[in-house]
C-alpha cells in the first residue's frame, strides 16, 4: 500500500476525540482501584478497632499522609509517562519529597530513643505481615492503572511500569494504614516504603511485556 493511500484512509477517521482522556482514564482507574483495595482491607483484614482513639494522634495522620503524598506524586509521574515525549520535569520531586520527610521524622525518632530501644521502633510487631499485605492490597490498583496506561501511549515501558507499581503500592499502603496499628515513624519509613517498592519493582519487570503498543 502506498503511503498516500494510507494517509487518505486515516484522514477520513476524524471523529473529534476527547482531550481530557488521560485525566479521565486515570480518574476511573484510581476510583475503582482504591475502592477495591479499601474493600479488601475492610472485609478481609478489618479496620483497626481503635480507629477513633488513633485518629486523635498526630502520627496516625502522618502515616496516612505519607502514602497519600506518594500517590499524588505517582499520579503526576504516571500521567506524564503516558504521553509520548512528555518530559517528567519536576514531578519525580513530588515522590521524593514525602519520602525525604518521613525519613527525617524516622531519623529524629531514632535519635531521641535510647540505643537499646531503637530496634523495637524499626521492627515493630507486624513487619512480615505489613510487607506481604501492602503489595497484595496494591493489586487492584495495579490492574486498573495498567488498563488505563494501555489505552494511552507510554514509550518508556520499564519506567512507566515502575511508576504504575509505585502508585499502586502507595494506594495499597494507604488502605493498609487504616488496618495497621504500628505508630512509629521508623517502621513506616522503612517497611511502608519497602511494601510500595515491591509492586514498583514488579511493574518495572512487567511494563515492557504488558504495556507494548
Amino acid at each position: 500500500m502506498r503511503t498516500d493511500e494510507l494517509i487518505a484512509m486515516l484522514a477520513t477517521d476524524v471523529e473529534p476525540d476527547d482531550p481530557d482522556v488521560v485525566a479521565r482514564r486515570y480518574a476511573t482507574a484510581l476510583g475503582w482501584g482504591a475502592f477495591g483495595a479499601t474493600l479488601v482491607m475492610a472485609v478481609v483484614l478489618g479496620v483497626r478497632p481503635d480507629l477513633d482513639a488513633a485518629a486523635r494522634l498526630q502520627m496516625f495522620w502522618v502515616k496516612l499522609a505519607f502514602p497519600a503524598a506518594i500517590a499524588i506524586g505517582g499520579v503526576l509521574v504516571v500521567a506524564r509517562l503516558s504521553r509520548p515525549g512528555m518530559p517528567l520535569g519536576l514531578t519525580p520531586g513530588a515522590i521524593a519529597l514525602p519520602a525525604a520527610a518521613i525519613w527525617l521524622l524516622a531519623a529524629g525518632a531514632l535519635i531521641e530513643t535510647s540505643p537499646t530501644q531503637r530496634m523495637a521502633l524499626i521492627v515493630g510487631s507486624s513487619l512480615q505481615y505489613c510487607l506481604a499485605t501492602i503489595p497484595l492490597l496494591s493489586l487492584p490498583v495495579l490492574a486498573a492503572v495498567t488498563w488505563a496506561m494501555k489505552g494511552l501511549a507510554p514509550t518508556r515501558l520499564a519506567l512507566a511500569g515502575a511508576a504504575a507499581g509505585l502508585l499502586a503500592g502507595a494506594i495499597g499502603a494507604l488502605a493498609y494504614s487504616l488496618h495497621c496499628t504500628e505508630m512509629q515513624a521508623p517502621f513506616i519509613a522503612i517497611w511502608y516504603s519497602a511494601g510500595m517498592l515491591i509492586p514498583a519493582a514488579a511493574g518495572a519487570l512487567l511494563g515492557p511485556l504488558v504495556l507494548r503498543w
Partner: protein
Amino acid sequence: MDDEVQPRSNEERLRELLVRGRAGDAGAYHAFLRDLSGHLRAFLRKRLARLPEDVEDLVQETLIAVHNQRHTYDATQPLTAWVKAIAKYKRVDLLRRRAACELRNESLDDDLDLCSRDESEAVTARIDVAALLERLPARQRVSIVHMKLHGLSVIETSRLTGMSEASVKVGVHRGLNALAAMIRNRR
C-alpha cells in the same frame, strides 16, 4: 523533524493542523498527515541507514500510531517531541523484532536473509492492507472499506450495511487497531 533543521513555523503549522484535525476538520488532518509523513521519512531515513528498505514501512507504522494515539497529544507540549518519541518507539520496536527474527533464523544459510525485505518493492511498503483487511471480522472490514477506501460517511455506511451508526464507528476504530496490530506482527 530535527529541531535544528526544522524551522519554528513548521512546528506551529503542523500543531495547528493536528489540533484542527482532532476537532473534526478532515482537510486539516489530511494536510497534517501528509506533511508529517515527509518529515518522518527524512527523520527515519537518517536513523535507519542500515535498513533503507524498511523506512517506508516504518513511516506507515508511525503514521498509524500517530493516528491511533492522537488523543495522547497534549496541545501545550511541543509536537516535535511527541512525534519523535512515537517514531523512536516504533523504530526500537522494529529493531527488536528484527533482532529476534535474526536470532530465530540463525542456523539458516547466510545468503538467505529472511529478515530483510525484497528490494524490488522499495517504493511502496510491503504491507498489503487489502490482504490484511480480508482477515478482519466482517463488520470491521465492511466499515473500513466503505468509510476509509470509498470515503462514505458514517450515516451512508450505516444505511448501506444496515449496521447502526454506533457499530460502524466501533467497527472502524477496532478494525484500524486490529490492522495496526497485524502490521506490527508481520515481522
